[in-house]
Structures are given as C-alpha cells and as structure tokens.
C-alpha cells in the first residue's frame, strides 16, 4: 500500500502516523515477551534493569538464576560438579522433574489427540458425512468451554473413576483439550485436497489403507504435524486441569511456575520464561515452515 501521488498533505501525515501507531501496537505485542530475556540474566534479585545492566557492565549480568533452576530441590547442591552432581540434578532437581513430566504428558497426549483428531478430520471432510455441523461443534467445544468448568468436571469424574493423580488421567484430559486444534488445522489442510487422487489410487487397485499411507498422508502431513505441535503446546502450557487433578508426582512446568508466581516471584521464574520463549520460537518456526510446505504441496501460493 504505497502512498499514492495524489495524496494530500494531511493524508501523507496520516500515512506515517498510521505506521507509527502500528509500530507501537507491535511493540505492545512483543515487548513484554522480550523484556523477560535480559532480566533473567540479572545479577540482583530485582525485576528492573539495574544501573550496571544499563551500562552493559558484565558484573550486572549473571547466570545465577539458571543455576538455581538446576540446584533447586537437589540433595547436595554444594557438592563438586562431577558426574554424581549431574545425576543428582537429573533425579532430584525440581525443575528437571517437572520438565520431564511436561514432556511425558505432552508427548502421549499429543499422540492420542493427533491420531484421533486426524481420523475424525478425514471423516468430517467427506461430503457425505451426516450431522457434520453438530458433530464438529461438539468436537471443537473443549476449546470454547471455560477451562475452569472442564477442570471441575474432570475433578469429580476422576475422583469417581480413580484416575485422579495418575498420568493417564492428565494425558486423557490434555488430549481432549488438544483435539480441537488438530481438527482445525487438519480440516484446513483437507480443504482443497483433490479427492480424485484417492479415486485414482483405488482405480489402480490400491487398498484403502495403502491409498491413505501412499497418497493422502504425504499430502496432509504438514497439516497433521502443525496440528500435533498445537496439541503439544496446549498440553505444555496447561495449568488449570493440572491444578485440579494432578497428584504431587505429576507437577508440570506451568504448575511449578504457577507456584512460583503465587508464592514469591523470583528471577528464577524469568529464566524458565526465557527458556519457554526460545521453545516457542522454535515451534513457531517449525509451524511456519510446515505451512509454507503445505501450501506449496497443494499449489495454493507461489511459495
């Protein structure tokens, strides 16, 4: 939208003012996320930039909060940092423990959500699907229903069925919450999918399973993987269900952050936040690349 030659001076002014406004809104979006990164290297237990940090004095910066992530909860944090020390970190450090839980729960709930969600999206994309609208509404509803209602419902259901405080319970719950994202992304990929490719494969003698794995799957794979990444992030970021139904052994990273923010917030939270921001940058990059690949495969945009 270049400035047209016939623009009046007022329009010229507005043209630049508009860009400045947009710049400020983008700053509002991104600054809070970026500001935690330098603060997590603070040498002091404060949440502001100290004078030493502002003058870029190396003494103002330290890795002490990252070190605290490793040592917090260890049996012998002061021991010499040899192999045994690292084993202690791996087995006992609180943040390492919750990170392992987050990954285990995220991994299995993602698999469950992706497999069930992709199958359902394939069915929903068929034109002959009965009650399509109603079923779609039910399957998307976990995203819409307030999380506190889901969590309280699961709290009673799980105490009744004995799933409370188990990994299975949390994995099932997180899969439920991730499914809408898988359905939305995979359905979007299937729009514009050429159904005649499937018929061509069938007419050449391929079984439905072979058609799916050799023809359909490669074409929708980018959409499936981004759906899976969405489901993983949903689980990785979920705290309310964990608050209500997890036992002491199933604490996750967001749950531990929740504790940290509620009780006394220390810059150690910022170092976790920084690591999570880096993780989300990696995930975002992956999803962007997949989206472009998917569009290229389906010939939607020139790439």
């Amino acid at each position, binding site marked *: 939208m270049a400035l047209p030659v016939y623009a009046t001076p007022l329009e010229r002014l507005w043209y630049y003012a508009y860009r400045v406004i947009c710049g400020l809104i983008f700053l509002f979006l991104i600054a809070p996320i970026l*500001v935690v990164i330098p603060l997590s290297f603070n040498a002091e237990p404060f*949440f502001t930039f100290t004078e030493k940090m502002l003058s870029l004095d190396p003494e103002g910066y330290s890795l002490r909060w990252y070190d605290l992530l490793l040592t917090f909860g260890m049996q012998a944090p002061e021991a010499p940092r040899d192999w045994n020390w690292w084993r202690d970190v791996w087995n006992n450090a609180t943040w390492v423990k919750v990170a392992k839980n987050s990954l285990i729960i995220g991994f299995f709930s993602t698999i469950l959500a992706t497999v069930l969600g992709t*199958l359902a999206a394939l069915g929903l994309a068929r034109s*002959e699907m009965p009650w399509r609208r109603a079923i779609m509404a039910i399957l998307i509803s976990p995203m819409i229903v*307030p999380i506190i209602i889901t969590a309280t419902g699961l709290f009673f259901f799980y105490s009744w069925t004995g799933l409370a405080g188990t990994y299975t319970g949390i994995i099932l719950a997180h899969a439920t919450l991730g499914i809408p994202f898988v359905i939305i992304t995979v359905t979007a990929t299937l729009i514009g999918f050429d159904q005649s490719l499937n018929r061509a494969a069938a007419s050449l003698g391929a079984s439905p399973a072979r058609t799916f794995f050799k023809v359909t799957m490669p074409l929708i794979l980018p959409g499936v993987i981004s759906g899976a990444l969405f489901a993983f992030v949903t689980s990785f970021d979920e705290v309310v269900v964990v608050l209500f139904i997890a036992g002491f052994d199933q604490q996750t990273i967001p749950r531990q952050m929740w504790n940290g923010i509620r009780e006394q917030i220390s810059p150690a939270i910022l170092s976790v936040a920084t690591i999570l921001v880096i993780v989300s940058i990696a995930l*975002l990059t992956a999803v962007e690349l997949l989206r472009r690949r998917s569009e290229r495969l389906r010939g939607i945009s020139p790439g």
Partner: protein
Amino acid sequence: MADLASDAPFATPARESLKTADGKPLKAALARAQARSRRRALFLVLPLLVFILVTFVFPIGQMLFRSVHNDAFSRNMPNLVAWFEATEPGTEPDEAAYAALAADLKLLRENRTAGEVGTRVNYELSGSRSLFTSTARRANALEPPFREAILAENEGWADPRLWQVMRDASSAYTANFYLAAVDLMHTETGEIARVPPDRQIYVNLFLRTFALSALITVLTLILGYPIAHLLATLPLRYSNILMILVLLPFWTSLLVRTTAWIVLLQQQGVINSTLVATGLIADDQRLAMIYNQTGTIIAMTHILLPFMVLPLYSVMRPIPPSYVRAARSLGASSWKAFRSVYFPMTVPGIAAGGLLVFILAVGYYITPALVGGASGQLISNLIAYHMTDSLNWSLAAALASILLAAVLLLYWLYDRLIGIDNLKLG
C-alpha cells in the same frame, strides 16, 4: 436406421426402472452405496466422538447435575425427612418433629456425619454448622420430651428460618443453589426474595465479568484492526515477517506472558522504575497497575489480541485494493472510501474476532487469578474458590452452569454467523 434406434439399450420404456449390471434397481443400489459411504465417514469420526463424550461431555454433565442435586441432608436424616414429607410446608415443628430430630442426631453421632449435614444446612443459613456438630455430640443424652431437651441443649433449634432451610434440604433435588447463584433465597414463609445487600456478590460478579470481557473485546478490536489492516495490505514478504510478531505471543506460554506483565507493571517493575528514573512520577507515587482490575485488563488484552488479529487478517487479505482505489477515483475522500467501501467488507472479521475474544474472555481464569488482585477477579475465579476453599460444590456447579449456558449461547451464535469450520489459527 429406424430399427437400430429401437434396439439400442437406452431406448427402454420409461416405465421400467434403470438397473445396474447385476440387475438390481439403480436407485436402491445408489442408496446403498451412499449409506455405505456415510457409514464409513461416521466410522472415522466415531472413535473421537466417543472419546470426547466420555472424557469431556459426560464429566461436565455429571458436574452440572450437582447444581440441582445434593443429598447430604436427605441421605443422613431419614426420620426428619419422613416428618417433612408427612406435613405441609410451614407447619410448626411439634414434639414429633423434635423426636425425629433427636433420632437423626443420634444417627449423625453414630455415623460421624454431623459435619456433612451441618455443612449442607450452613450453605443456606450460615452459623448453623456448629449447631449440628455440638448437639449431635451430646445426642445420646437426649430424653423425652425432646423439644425441651433439644432447646435446652441449644436455643438455636427454635429458629423458624432453620426449619425452613431443613425442609428445603430434605429433598435431594433443589433449585436453591441456582437461587443463591443469582443472589436470591427462600424466606421463612417460603417466598423468593433478594439476599441482604452485603451478601449480593454473584450478580455483580457476572455483570463485572461481562463488562470487563466487553471492554477487553473492544480494546483488542481497537488495537487489532490497524495492524490486521497493515498486515493485509503489505506485500506478502513483509507481512509474513510482521506476522511473526503476532504469532510469537500466540505461541508463547500463557504463564510466561502473565509473568512478563507482572515484571513490567508491578510497583518495583520496569515501567514504574522507568517513570521514576525519568522524573515523570515521584518515587513514593508509583502507579498501582497490577493486582487490580487494570492489571487484568492490560494482561488479558495482550493475551487475547492475536485471537482478534488472525480472523480480521483472514477476512482483510482477500479484499482487492482496487475497490478502495476505485472509490478514490470516483471522488471519495480517503475517510469516505474507508468508511463506505473497506470497513463494511471487514465486518464479518470483526464479528468473528469479537465473538471469539469475548467467549474466551468470559471464561478466563489464570490471568485474573495471578494479576487480578481483589477487584480484577472474574466469575471463573469464584467458581474455583467454591471448588477448592469453601467446598460448596453445588453452588460452584450452579455458577458454572450459568457461565456455561452463556458461553454455549455465544458459541451457537458464532456457529450461526461465522461457522466453526471457518475458525483459523495462524
């Protein structure tokens, strides 16, 4: 040539229906084939549908059932329940009633359920829990005449309001929790009235939740519209880069974003320190921007902004720039061209983004809980409070079902206006 045509297979008389190769009527064969492909499509969806029904819909339904069903009283007080059933509402408690009460109090003592029953009655008449626990503790000493014996134990049993509440609770099914959830109650005479002004909290909290959500929706629209427009009109290679600035917050953990706002807004935080350092405010006048309503509004606007920008962008991108140019060439000012040509075409995006943000905001829990302080709490936080602290699960369920009804209504509206299939993420 004429007899050739009469021999051709497609010249069969119209009366006879069309057949497939194996001689079945074509209509039936087609119907069967369609039914088969419908079944196949349904078969693909079925596993997930069952999964969602079992792990999501059923638990929520079960939870909501608690809002109309609470048998803590009726299960543990069989004698008194029988007396209530045998008498008209409003009957003065006679000696028979007190005899039933005494028998039940003995049962409570035996089964150690006095606390459970007391809690149930306490929901509707605060201070009555101790009445049950203390009298049940000495229930074995009660001798006829029971009325005098019980009243000697505690005068509180003569309260007509208590008997009204017990009569209400004697049925496991009750609408009282819904009444409580909208600040109403049953009086001694059985009429429905508003609770005393100092205890009217829920209606105000619902109103505050809806008002704050509306405000946040408007703020995200004001902030989201310009950048969605910029993204939609820039060439793709620039807009893709700028889009990352929208998508990165979207992909960043909610707790990280909430933490970031705590860091920025708190009294010793980055913004206050900057303002003090630049001399704009005095050190002892640091602004209170967090742990109150302001904190909730700022943090939620930031967190929900991508949900506004993405639907707006997907509506704005396909609008051809030539429309606005045509309007300009016909003499419209740039404001007029925007107002009459561009803006009307973006209304579907505004509806989609606005409804989505409003639906998500109404049910928000985490951010208000962490940065809301006392004045920034929403209805979800109160549901959580009744779940974990006051343990009034039936009231929590009643509040939850009102919230759920509102959200589902908006969801239905979204489906009608925009269609769930059109929901896009990134």
